[in-house]
């Protein structure tokens, strides 16, 4: 945690609505290098929508995004990747009909000196990365459709860490994983954190993320209830924030905090 003053990512007053629904309203959130920030909230709170603005999947209606203190133009997923933002989507966003290697390199294929796809090299690298992540994984030649939910999730995670990410967004990354694979992802997060990568970890279940996270942001009905360092609050207090929007003394209230009389 070297550069404590300048956040890696700063999203300020982000708003986005679909039709009449304010999916995210004036949300402000930040992330420092080597930090794990958990974004918590009930189903439909707006977590995925908020981080999709950062990953370029959605265009915001209002607000600013700053990367390393400078205003960032993120209009599509390609822009986000240029800033070193890699995303594991909740829906995984894998192409079912092609194999793991094709998915890992989708949009960034390795090519031979002739300009053709270097499938062999891509498969070799894929075997290596997947070996680190999920040593039991063997089905490299099959379309991803033939994989289990957890194996598909491993593919999505591998894709995000394959290219040197500086900012990693993980939207419910362990939803489909077994205990062993979940632990592996936990180790991976700690390792990436040591390398100075900033990680947004999205979840609706506090138990998944509380021990991994340095700070938590809680969202409710599209608004940020508040944020806190995990060392300053208890799980129960965070649970109160998620369910009731009640901000404990150790946390900083946001626009979505329950108004206390």
């Amino acid at each position, binding site marked *: 945690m070297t550069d404590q003053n300048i956040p890696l990512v700063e999203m300020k007053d982000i708003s986005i609505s679909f039709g009449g629904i304010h999916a995210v309203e004036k949300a402000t959130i930040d992330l420092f290098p080597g930090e794990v920030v958990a974004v918590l909230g009930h189903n439909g709170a707006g977590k995925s929508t908020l981080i999709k603005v950062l990953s370029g999947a959605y265009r915001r209606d209002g607000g600013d995004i700053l990367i390393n203190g400078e205003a960032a133009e993120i209009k599509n997923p*390609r822009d986000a990747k240029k800033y070193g933002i890699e995303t594991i989507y909740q*829906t995984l966003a894998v192409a079912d009909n*092609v194999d793991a290697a*094709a998915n890992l390199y989708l949009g960034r294929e390795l090519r031979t000196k002739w*300009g053709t*796809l270097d499938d*062999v090299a891509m*498969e070799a690298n894929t075997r290596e990365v997947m070996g680190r992540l999920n040593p039991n994984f063997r089905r490299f030649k099959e379309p991803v459709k033939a994989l289990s939910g957890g194996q598909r999730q491993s593919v999505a995670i591998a894709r995000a860490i394959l290219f040197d990410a500086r900012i990693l967004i993980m939207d419910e990354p362990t939803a489909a994983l077994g205990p062993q694979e979940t632990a592996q992802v936990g180790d991976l997060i700690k390792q990436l954190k040591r390398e100075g990568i900033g990680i947004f970890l999205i979840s609706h279940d506090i138990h998944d993320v509380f021990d991994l996270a340095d700070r938590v942001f809680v969202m409710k009905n599209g608004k940020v209830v508040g944020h806190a360092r995990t060392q300053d609050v208890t799980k129960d207090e965070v649970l109160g924030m998620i369910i009731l929007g009640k901000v404990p003394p150790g946390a900083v209230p946001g626009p979505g905090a329950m108004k206390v009389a």
Partner: protein
Amino acid sequence: MADMTHSTTPHASETTTTARPEGNLVARFFRATEIDTRMLGMIGALLIIWIGFHILTGGLFLTARNLWNLSVQTASVAVMATGMVLVIVTRNIDLSVGSILGFTGMIMGVLQAQYLPQLLGFDHPAIWAVALIGGIVVGGLIGTLQGFIIAFLSVPSFIVTLGGLLVWRGATWFVTSGQTVAPMNPSFRLMGGGAEGSIGETWSWIVGIIACLAIVAAIVNARHQRKRFHFPRRPLWAEYVLAGVGFVTVIGAVMVANAYFWPINIARRYAEANGIPWPEGGLQIPHGIAIPVLIAIAAGIVMTFIATRLRFGRYVFAIGGNPEAAELAGIKTRWVTVKIFALMGVLCAIAAAISTARLNAATNAQGELDELYTIAAAVIGGTSLGGGLGTIAGAMLGALVMQSLQSGMVLLGIDTPFQRIVVGIVLVTAVWLDTVYRARAK
């Protein structure tokens, strides 16, 4: 009715062979050679259709003459089917290919018959090439326009190309106010086949040898690549089997093409023109492979390369599998769509060149219903309308299956209305069997 059962049973055999692996040996053979059983089923179907017609026609079908004609008749739809695969893989459809064929054919017709002779002189050697390029450019522009409307204005491809079907057919009429343009330029006509438009015995053998060398090179290269990264390799005997099957196919095809001789009047004219004395038993000049067939094969190779070896092809399949994932991966999915339709337009123009050259005329009705045969070829060839699945080779084989059915029925003297009924039923049956096959393969 008899021919109907003949054309459907082959597909049925395709499902049974895979559903019930006969013993260990067969299963091991397929695993070792990595042969696609689906493709094998299609080849089996084709062979059964051929043999069935051969028997029904009393030995007229499997003759050098008929097979050679079959290859030429298939060429135009086969060229378009290679592009239709990419269109359907991305969950789109192109109903306008027949009309684009008609329009670009007419453009090439008037270019070589009316405008270019005035501009360049009557027998300028470049007329055919300029006309061809002109048609290709027009086809590409039409495809680009349609692709642009589909991708950027978000009008469904079904509607855009249905509109195109009407617009380009109407536009064809306007080029000459409905008049047929003929004859075509002699060099241009070579693209249509015939005695002149075939490469003869020697060149056919050269092409055959090159094809055999290419097969060896491909197998050796694949082995080498797998070795480089320590991937499992096919057993050596399997490689030999594959190479052997390839050789037999290629050499067989060349022999058939060389066994079909020029018609006697053309040969006589040729002999007179070149001062060759007319021999006792007549002059037997082999046709060799027809140029339109070479064009179709070239189109197939290029399109397979694009679909499997280039980034563009990878994107096409990824978009077909999951459009949202492709977009999130940073692929410019709209531009890929535009390029697919542009490519389709170019292929329509190439098909139009073959078709106008073969007919020696550009007519208003050229390519009518071809959109349906093209789509049917792709679908019979294993392209899934759900997107994400399909091969170029399969689609070309599908075109051959369709054309075989039609030619066979013509040989049997079956009327056109009944031919259509049969083709329609076969199409539905083939796709149903394919669905069954896929459901079991899962």
